[in-house]
């Protein structure tokens, strides 16, 4: 027989009250867990889409007055005739603090060439990096494996009439078409892609690049920080993050997140009120019992401990049950907020589970503090006169 035994026994006897307290906390905890998990999964979903998007940092030479667009987004100034970044300078990117977050680095040289009487834009690229930077590419044929092959954008192929396996002469260099891009609706449709070194020779820009793309998209990548780090090592370049695409949606999620916190706080507040009112009722119902405890020599602190132990036990159960209920609710609701990604990714997070468990106990005990003090202040003689 200890104070713990008394607390457990009382909870067993007054099941309805215990369940009421449990329900109050459980609803609050599961709502918080559900909303936090939902927001997190929505962020994960966007990050996943970002990763699918490919490059998210562009490096272009600094310019004063020329504009250039890429993928429908303004990328600042760049020109074919202006000074280029030297290829070896890109090596410095490997020295930045967040170098491990760089998934791919794609240098690109751009220049105008003539194919079959048509002026087209040639892009010299590193095809290994490009496959990471442009995950949406569907190539009919093969990616070039040597310096004498090229890939044509769908529009270039249509206009020039060139097909897979055709030979084409560009500035005295004979190249074979090994791949044709399927229509992507992007600027790539109008480009000729050649290996970087080949394009540099054709365009007369050995060791020079027009721009570079960096894929650093992952859920934990500090993009703005990386942009600054790259800018520091490449002072002659304009380094920009492509965030416009997702910025709007991120803002929406941010608003939803704030809304979630407000709703969570309100639900928790109501849950705590339920605990408070129920525990006050319980103390009033147990006036005589508390009088008996005090007559037997229980100190005020003993009475407080019994009440808080009861609240703590219920709150601990609510914390565990609420965590799983919240996760379950997220699983059910997630398809309504995302396009399916992340449904299987909802997993147990020990840190969050621990935090929820502790927070639930703190809230349960916090809400029971006043009833516990009220119980301890009962005059034992008055309590026994209530017999």
């Amino acid at each position: 027989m200890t104070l713990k035994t008394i607390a457990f026994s009382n909870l067993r006897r007054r099941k309805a009250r215990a369940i009421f307290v449990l329900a109050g906390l459980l609803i609050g905890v599961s709502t918080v867990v559900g909303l936090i998990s939902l927001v997190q999964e929505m962020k994960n979903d966007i990050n996943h889409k970002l990763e699918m998007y490919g490059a998210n940092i562009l490096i272009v030479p600094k310019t004063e007055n020329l504009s250039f667009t890429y993928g429908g987004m303004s990328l600042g100034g760049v020109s074919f005739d202006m000074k280029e970044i030297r290829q070896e300078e890109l090596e410095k990117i490997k020295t930045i603090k967040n170098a491990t977050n760089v998934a791919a680095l794609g240098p690109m040289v751009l220049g105008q060439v003539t194919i079959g009487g048509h002026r087209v834009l040639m892009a010299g690229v590193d095809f290994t990096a490009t496959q990471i930077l442009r995950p949406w590419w569907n190539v009919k044929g093969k990616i070039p494996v040597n310096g004498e092959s090229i890939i044509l954008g769908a529009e270039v192929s249509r206009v020039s009439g060139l097909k897979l396996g055709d030979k084409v002469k560009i500035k005295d260099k004979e190249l074979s078409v090994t791949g044709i891009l399927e229509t992507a609706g992007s600027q790539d449709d109008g480009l000729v892609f050649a290996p970087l070194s080949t394009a540099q020779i054709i365009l007369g820009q050995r060791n020079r690049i027009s721009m570079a793309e960096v894929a650093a998209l992952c859920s934990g990548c500090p993009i703005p920080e990386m942009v600054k780090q790259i800018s520091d090592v490449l002072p002659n370049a304009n380094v920009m993050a492509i965030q416009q695409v997702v910025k709007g949606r991120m803002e929406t999620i941010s608003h939803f997140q704030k809304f979630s916190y407000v709703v969570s706080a309100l639900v928790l507040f109501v849950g705590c009120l339920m605990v408070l009112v129920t525990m006050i009722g319980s103390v009033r119902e147990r006036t005589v019992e508390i009088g008996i405890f005090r007559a037997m020599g229980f100190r005020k602190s003993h009475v407080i401990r019994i009440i808080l132990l009861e609240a703590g036990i219920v709150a601990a159960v609510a914390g565990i049950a609420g965590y799983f209920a919240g996760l379950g609710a997220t699983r059910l609701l997630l398809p309504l907020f995302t396009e399916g990604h992340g449904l299987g990714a909802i997993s147990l997070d020990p840190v969050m589970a621990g935090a929820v468990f502790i927070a639930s106990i703190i809230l349960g005990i916090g809400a029971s503090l006043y009833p516990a003090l009220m119980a301890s202040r009962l005059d034992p003689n008055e309590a026994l006169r209530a017999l």
Partner: protein
Amino acid sequence: MNYIDAKNLVKQYGTGEATVTAVNDISLRIDPGEFVAIMGESGSGKSTLLSMMGGLNSPTSGRFLVDGVDVYALSSDERADFRKKSIGFVFQSFHLLPYLTLAENVMLPLAIIDISKKKKLAAATDALARVGLPGKVNRLPNQISGGEQERVAIARAIVNRPPIILADEPTGNLDRRTGAEVMKLLTTLNHEGITVIIVTHSNEYAHCARRLIRLLDGRLVNGELAM
């Protein structure tokens, strides 16, 4: 030792014209091992005096000393410790906790004492045996008779071996035969050296005590030897 010394105890309830004096200038001394019965009509202040003796009810004026220690000069926690060590209460309505077994009810005063679970259970089993209820440790209060419940209440009062037992009408809810058995049990405990102070309406049971204290309107009428 544990002698009890009340000096000019006064207890008033209410204020102004509504003031009621429940205990009016009572002084008495009870020696260790005495069996005292407090008698009087309803409202004469018997239960108030008993609760003051138990350290539960602060006097409006006067002093209450046990072994020379002024109980009401102690802090709340110190007074709780005094009750834990020195007083065993037996209530008229038994006041067993219905959700605890008999053994658990008896062990309640030990819940705040730092001894092993085994020793607590042994003490409770021993106390139940002393009141004639061996083998019923796992029953719930609603599974035994009123007389047995009173015995359990007495077992709970003696489990931590206090030197003083205060019983407020311990036979009030019992039939004559069962009441006599309870009084016999209290007499036995008194013979073992425990100071027993009871409040009762019954002359018959009061005469089990060696000393009678009569109250009238909160005043001590006399303190006579019962035998």
